[in-house]
C-alpha cells in the first residue's frame, strides 16, 4: 500500500492562505488505511479550517482517488461538484491521486499530505517500507524478503560489514534484513542459494516516469 503522512495543520493553512472556499478530498484506500488522509482525517482538517475562517464546500473520500471512475462517473461527478463550488481543492490522497485530480479540474489543487512509501501494515500501529518499486524484483531468490527496499544500501550479495549483532549500521533501531533473509532461507531449505554471486541490477528499469500498458 502507498502510505502518506498528513502535513501539519499550520502548513496546510499556509498553503490555502489565498483562498476561501475549500473542497477536501481524502482517499479510502491508502490514505485512510494509514490514518493520515481518509474521511476521518479529512473531517478533522475541515473542522480546523473552519475555525480558521475557511468555508468548507465539501468533504469526500472515494475508494481510490487514483482511479478516475471513482472521481467522476456519469452518475456522480465529484470533480465537477468541487470545481463549481470552490476556489481550491485540498487533497489528502497520495501523490498519484492528487495529480489525477489536478489534471481534471481547472481550479488549484493543494496537497495536505506527503507521500511516503510502499509499505506493509504492522500490528495495526505502523507501516514499514517493503518495496521501492525497482522494476526488477528479486524476492523470489531472497526468501520473499526484499533486500533492495529493506537494506539502506540495497545490497543483493549479502550483508555489509556494518551488520553487528543483528543490527543495521545505519540505524541501530533497525534489524539487519539479511539476518531475517538468512533465517527464512534456512527454514525453507534455500540457504545455499545465497552463495551464488548476484550480478549488478538493471537500473534502467526504474527510470521514471514509467508506464504500464494494459494488454488488449
Amino acid at each position, binding site marked *: 500500500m502507498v502510505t502518506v503522512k498528513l502535513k501539519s495543520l499550520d502548513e496546510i493553512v499556509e498553503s490555502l492562505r489565498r483562498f476561501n472556499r475549500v473542497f477536501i478530498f481524502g482517499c479510502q484506500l491508502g490514505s485512510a488505511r494509514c490514518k493520515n488522509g481518509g474521511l476521518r482525517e479529512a473531517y478533522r482538517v475541515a473542522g480546523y479550517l473552519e475555525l480558521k475562517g475557511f468555508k468548507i464546500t465539501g468533504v469526500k473520500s472515494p475508494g481510490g482517488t487514483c482511479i478516475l471512475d471513482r472521481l467522476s462517473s456519469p452518475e456522480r461527478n465529484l470533480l465537477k461538484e468541487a470545481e463549481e463550488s470552490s476556489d481550491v481543492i485540498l487533497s489528502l490522497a497520495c501523490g498519484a491521486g492528487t495529480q489525477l485530480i489536478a489534471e481534471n479540474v481547472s481550479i488549484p489543487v493543494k496537497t495536505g499530505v506527503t507521500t511516503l512509501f510502499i509499505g506493509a501494515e504492522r500490528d495495526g500501529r505502523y507501516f514499514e517500507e517493503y518495496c521501492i518499486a525497482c522494476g526488477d524484483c528479486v524476492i523470489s531468490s531472497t526468501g520473499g524478503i526484499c533486500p533492495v527496499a529493506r537494506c539502506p*544500501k540495497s545490497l*543483493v*550479495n*549479502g550483508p555489509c*560489514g556494518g551488520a553487528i549483532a543483528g543490527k543495521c549500521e545505519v540505524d541501530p533501531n533497525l534489524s539487519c534484513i539479511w*539476518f531475517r533473509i538468512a533465517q527464512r532461507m534456512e527454514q525453507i531449505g534455500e*540457504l545455499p542459494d545465497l552463495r551464488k554471486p548476484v550480478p549488478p541490477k538493471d537500473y534502467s528499469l526504474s527510470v521514471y516516469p514509467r508506464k504500464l500498458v494494459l494488454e488488449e
Partner: protein
Amino acid sequence: MSFREKVATGKFVITAEVAPPRGTDYTSVIKAIEPLKGKVDAFNVTDCQRSMVRMAPLPMAKFLKDSGYEPILQLTCRDRNRIALQAELLGAYALGIENVCLMTGDFTTLGDQPDAKPVFDLDSVQLIEVASTLNSGRLMNGKELQGRVDLFIGAVYNPFAGPEILQVWKLEKKIKAGAKFIQTQPIYDVELARKVSDLIYSLGAVPVVGILPIKSLKMANFMKKLNPTSVPDSLIEGLERASNPATYGWDFAVDVAKACIEFSGGVHFMLVGKVQELASFIDFVKNHRDYNGKF
C-alpha cells in the same frame, strides 16, 4: 619489491592508513608519514571515510606515489555509479596506481552531510568483478579498452559482522571475483586473527590483519559500542589497571601484530598518530632474527 610482488611471493606485508586532507594541503599529510618511508609497504588512501568530505583518494594516491610511497587506492560504492567507478579505476591505472581496495562504503547518513544522495549502484562484490573485467581488457558492458589495465585488487572483511555464514560467503564471492588480498577490521585477539587468516588463505587470498591501537579506555568503550565482540575483556581490564593506557593499548596491539607474522600475510595499521612508534616497531621486527626472511 612492490606491495604486489611481496603479496604474490608470500612475504609479510605491512600497510597503513592515510586519510586525505579536509582541504587541499596534502603536503602536511605526506610529511606526517615520513618516518614510515621505506618501512610500510603500502598506504591505503581512504575514500571520504565515515562519509565525511575530504580530498578525493585518487589525487592523494598520486601525490603519495610521486613522493615515493606506494598507495592502495580505496574506492567505495557510496558516491559513484558504475560509470564513475570504471572511469576512476581506468584513471588510477593510467596514473600508475595499481593497488586498489574495493568496498561498499559507510552509509551517507552516518557522516556530517547526511542530506547527500546515497548511490550504491554496485556493491563490493560487483565492483571487484568490474575491476577484474577491466583487467581482462573490457568495460563491464563488454566494450574493448584502449590500453591495458592490470589492477591489483583487494577487499575488506569484518569478522565481527553477521550472519556469519553470509559474511563468509560474501568474502568467498569477493575472492572469486578477483580480490587477491583481504584487509580486516581491527582484531585484538591472536586466536581470532589466526582463524580469520586461515579462512582467507583457504578461500584463495592473502590476509592482512587490521591493527588499531587503543589509546584510552574511552576509545575502547567506543570500539566496543561499535562492535561489542571485537574488544576482549582482557584489553578493557588492562586499560583500567594501566598507569599509561595509551602505552598499554599500543603494546597490546603490537603483540597481536607480532603474532600475526607467524601465521598471516600481513598487518594493516589503522592508526592516527604514533608514527614514530610504528616506525620503531617495524625496524624491530624486520631486524629480529626470528622473522628473518619473512619481510
